[in-house]
């Protein structure tokens, strides 16, 4: 068996169309997630689910404001 025949034999190891589409989807979903700015993610969340997004935004804001004094208090106790 020569080099060319072995090269062609390796082609049988290629992914099926179904598997290939799954790999494509996962890789590009991850890339899109990396490329999308945080602000755009939030805007999209408000568009898709306004109420839960509002609740999440309020909870995030409260935790940002409340965290420093809580950490300070915890350190003082220790």
């Amino acid at each position, binding site marked *: 068996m*020569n*080099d060319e*025949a072995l090269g*062609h034999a*390796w082609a049988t*190891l*290629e992914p099926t*169309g179904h598997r290939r589409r799954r790999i494509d989807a*996962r*890789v590009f979903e991850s890339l899109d997630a990396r490329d999308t700015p945080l602000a755009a993610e939030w805007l999209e969340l408000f568009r898709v689910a306004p109420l839960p997004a509002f609740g999440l935004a309020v909870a995030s804001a409260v935790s940002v404001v409340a965290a420093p004094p809580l950490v300070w208090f915890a350190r003082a106790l220790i």
Partner: protein
Amino acid sequence: MIAAPPAPLFATLSSRLGGDAEPLAEDAISELVEQARGGDAGARRRLYTQHVDRVFRTVRGMLRSDADAEDVTQDALLTVLTSLHRYAPRADARFAAWVMAIAVNTVRRRFRRRRPELTATGELPETADEAVDPAIELDRARQRRALLIALGELPERERAIVSLRYGAELNASEIAAIVGLEPATIRKILERARTRLGARLEALLSPDGGMA
């Protein structure tokens, strides 16, 4: 002795099963890398399409299942596409060699704790592609199984080297840089592995080889 499996059949199967990216010259690849570094999403996608099947068939030759090969292919290509700024073109190695070095490192990192065991018997393709003739699909499955059995009988290092040669289509110097051996040693290993693989494949695919 029987004749080697017909090359055009493998080529047809390959193109029918998703090997649809016409390979580009190294200059065109370098241009795509530059464009992708500049944020061109289309260039990034074309780079991906150029390499995804090649990475999969290379790591599939080293690993024990399609699922493992799928995970490694995903991780490796994600690393490639998000690390393009670290790629430094070299006169003695193509971009594909850099991609394969990342793929091999991904295999090593992923299977550092458990030794990858290659099996050929535990899997069937999950679903046949709609457009493929069942007879062609059956023949492909038979060839594939024979190749995986023959590969499974090679030592791990030889398996990686022949996969880089025939799956990734790298030359001896490029393989040597990835596995840390001299090109002359790679050529010797390839010669030995080619003889062994060829003989084993012919035996497995012969009428009394149990796979006809």
